[in-house]
């Protein structure tokens, strides 16, 4: 397929701003997994955008149709325009089999995409110029800084008040009895979660809002202890916050907000790990607050933290996104971890060649890693564990347990495909919350098995 003409790309661009944004994405370090179909009609690739999971996009060069997993409502988005620009500028796209997600997209297409007419004026690449850096105005800077400090002070006060309110609420529940709380858990949690939102603690509110679902997934006999554990965590978080003057970054993320990607990348103290990562599982969960949490669990085949979690949130109203990774794929990359006593959540800095390594041996007692995580961050909800050789077994009540030589742990039965019950699991990965495990993947004599529910 001949290179696209710039005029074609300009005509396809929805506006001048998209074109300008696309030009900024032409850095090779932002792109990975580039490919081209044998007939040259399709090109595709992954673009590291502002999310933790890279955006996955493909362009049909015949009719300039495109598909991107980014949340932009513009069509084509800046990532697709950037991919077109790369093709037009002679960027080498390795020939490859068309990946399944592109095939699925092809199947859903109704025909040629029609480029949206630009709203005002015709976008032009020639008009894309570097934005001049604004001169710093010391007075304006000082005003902004004062406003920021004021906002922070207000937020700090609101959080302190909110946490005191939360402790009071927990004391009330203990005095009136947890059996009553359990019987009416969703409604009561929703009420207190709303109060936490008012107190500018969005992350904590979401955690409390999700609490009923986590508790009700357990057998009735284990719900009380799980509830005590979670209420105890909330008390710990509140006490660890104290007056909020020097909150632990991990705790701030659990209570209020998460650092922006740019701030994380600019943080020299953040843990950076270059390693070979294998994709254990991808999960998309719609939360009660209307956000979809897209999570990619990575296992580290090299030195450093055993797992990493790439996590993005987007509104459910934006529609489903296809997963950014294929489960089981292995890639080399430098990851930067969000500062935390227990580093887990991360962002990809860039892809790189990290050689080929086998998985390191799993500890005989998988709960050692759990204990270590609790020791560093006692309020952590979910901890990924690497399980040594074991087997899934059934209890009389239909519950399913992972059984190793040193320990047995209950797992979410709905996630377990029948085939996994008939094979030794040479190694497996699981998310453990102290009460119930969610299997992610397992290596078996018949190859890798994914657990998808």
């Amino acid at each position: 397929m001949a290179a696209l003409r710039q005029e074609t790309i300009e005509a396809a661009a929805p506006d001048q701003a998209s074109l300008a944004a696309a030009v900024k994405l032409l850095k090779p370090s932002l792109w990975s997994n580039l490919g081209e179909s044998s007939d040259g009609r399709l090109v595709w690739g992954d673009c590291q955008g502002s999310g933790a999971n890279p955006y996955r996009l493909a362009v049909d060069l015949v009719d300039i149709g495109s598909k991107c997993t980014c949340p932009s409502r513009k069509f084509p988005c800046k990532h697709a325009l950037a991919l077109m620009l790369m093709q037009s500028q002679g960027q080498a796209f390795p020939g490859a089999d068309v990946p399944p997600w592109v095939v699925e997209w092809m199947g859903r297409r109704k025909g040629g995409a029609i480029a949206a007419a630009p709203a005002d004026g015709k976008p032009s690449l020639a008009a894309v110029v570097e934005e001049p850096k604004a001169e710093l105005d010391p007075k304006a800077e000082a005003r902004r800084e004062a406003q920021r400090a004021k906002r922070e002070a207000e937020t700090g006060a609101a959080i302190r008040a909110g946490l005191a309110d939360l402790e009071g609420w927990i004391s009330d529940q203990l005095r009136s009895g947890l059996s009553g709380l359990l019987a009416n858990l969703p409604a009561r949690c929703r009420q207190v979660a709303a109060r936490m939102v008012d107190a500018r603690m969005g992350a904590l509110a979401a955690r409390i809002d999700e609490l009923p679902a986590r508790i009700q997934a357990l057998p009735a006999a284990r719900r009380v202890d799980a509830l005590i554990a979670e209420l105890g965590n909330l008390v710990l978080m509140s006490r660890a916050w104290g007056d909020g003057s020097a909150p632990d970054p991990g705790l701030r993320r659990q209570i209020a907000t998460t650092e922006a990607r740019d701030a994380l990348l600019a943080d020299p103290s953040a843990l950076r790990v270059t390693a070979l990562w294998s994709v254990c599982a991808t999960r998309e969960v719609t939360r009660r607050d209307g956000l979809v949490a897209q999570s990619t669990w990575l296992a580290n085949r090299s030195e450093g933290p055993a797992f990493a979690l790439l996590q993005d949130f987007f509104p459910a109203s934006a529609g489903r996104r296809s997963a950014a990774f294929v489960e089981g794929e292995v890639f080399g990359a430098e990851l930067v971890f969000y500062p935390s006593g227990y580093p887990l959540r991360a962002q990809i800095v860039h892809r790189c060649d990290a050689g080929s390594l086998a998985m390191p041996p799993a500890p005989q007692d998988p709960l050692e890693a759990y204990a270590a995580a609790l020791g560093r961050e006692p309020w952590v909800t979910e901890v990924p564990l690497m399980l040594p050789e074991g087997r899934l077994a059934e209890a009389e009540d239909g519950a399913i347990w992972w059984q190793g030589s040193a320990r047995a742990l209950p797992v979410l039965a709905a996630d377990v495909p029948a085939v996994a019950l008939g094979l030794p699991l040479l190694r497996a990965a699981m998310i453990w919350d102290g009460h119930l495990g969610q299997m992610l993947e397992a290596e078996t004599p018949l190859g890798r098995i994914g657990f998808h529910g």
Partner: protein
Amino acid sequence: MAEPLIPILMAARSRWMIGGDGVAHEHPLVAGLSSAEADLRLLAVAGQYQRFAQPPQPPVLNLRQDLPVLSLPFLPDAMRPLARRLLQDKADRAPLWLAIFAAKRGHVLHPADWMPPPNADLPEVYRPLQAWAAGQTGPAAQLSSETWLGLTKTERLAQFSALRQADPAAALALLTEHLAPCPAEERLVLVELLATGLTADDTAFLQGLGADRSEKVRKAAAHLLARLGQSDAHPLAAEAAAMFEVATEGLIRRRKVLRLIAKAKDGQIRSLVQNLPEISLPSLAEALGLGPAEFVELWQPDKVPQPVQYALSSMIARTAMGPEVAAYWQKLMAEPETARVSLPQIFPRLTSDDQETACLWLVAQSGLAACSDILSLMGAAVPAPVSAALTAQRKALVDLVKLSQVTAPEKAANARADRDRLANVLSTLGLLLTASDAALVLQSVTGAGVHPADPMLDRLSFNAALKGT
């Protein structure tokens, strides 16, 4: 000595369940604090203790047996992503067709991609996996007089079917011993399985079933006896025979023909259609003073109301001997519409050569539209001549591709319908053709503009890539 903490936590847990004010303790963690503050501290410690020090204790656990080893290899790893994508199509037994197709090419689907349903009608190679999925422990015992009652019904019927194919006499001996106590529904299936390898040796046993408690079993036995040429002199045969007449036709070369009586009334036709399923070819022919072969030879299928022809085809398929069925089919082919309607009934009674000829005839008659009929008649992976005949229809396929690509807005609805039809045909061809023919078809349609990555080519791509062992 300080008060131990664990009993304090246990007591607090019990109190928190039902509610109430806190209790003062001497433990340093909570000594001297207000009851609310002490409870919050105890709660935080209890949570950590419970999460870390008290992991759930397992009950008695049962391990399933290991998955059985199947006699065919799994699909090559490189083909599993494509297989998984095809397995997402749950429509129209699509996963079963894929499993059957793969087995004919010498592979089984990976159980991590697809676990065969326990009761699905699948090739023998999947049976151990189906038994495992059904919760059976260990391989089933070999069917014998001693194990007859110990096997599950599904296993018993499957093994009996295999035994009848391999050793008809041994199967008959088992049935003679064990049929009577079986429930009527199972008796019927077992008797129908005698159709395989039916010989005169079965006559006495089948005649004995004339006194069976179930009418359905008695009827099935009578139909099998008819296939051995035995008339049961059914009382309805005479009434049905009255609707037929043997006449002579032709001015110069006078020849005998068998046809429906002229001026048959609608009520008589309806009555005949109701009666034909009850009677057999030998008894109807006998009532007309003809032999079964003579009946078929003289029968004139033209100008016969379709319901009558359909009922007659059904009767012949059930009760005629093999050569008579073949002769009947030869005669029907002169009447394509009638033949096409009757073929599903006749097809299972044809020899494999005649089945292949019938499929070629279908392709000649209907072109690509024959695909789905051939799949339902012959199953996946048809013989090479049938595959070649279908592949020779590539020009029609290319025409269909072009129709599906029409972009004029006023023809959009037609183009969508053509695309659906194209997708259906390509998908069916993917289950029928040989690997080399599948590659040829892929070449034609991609040459005509279908993108190689278009999902409607998935089955053909799967076929072309799975060369077989």
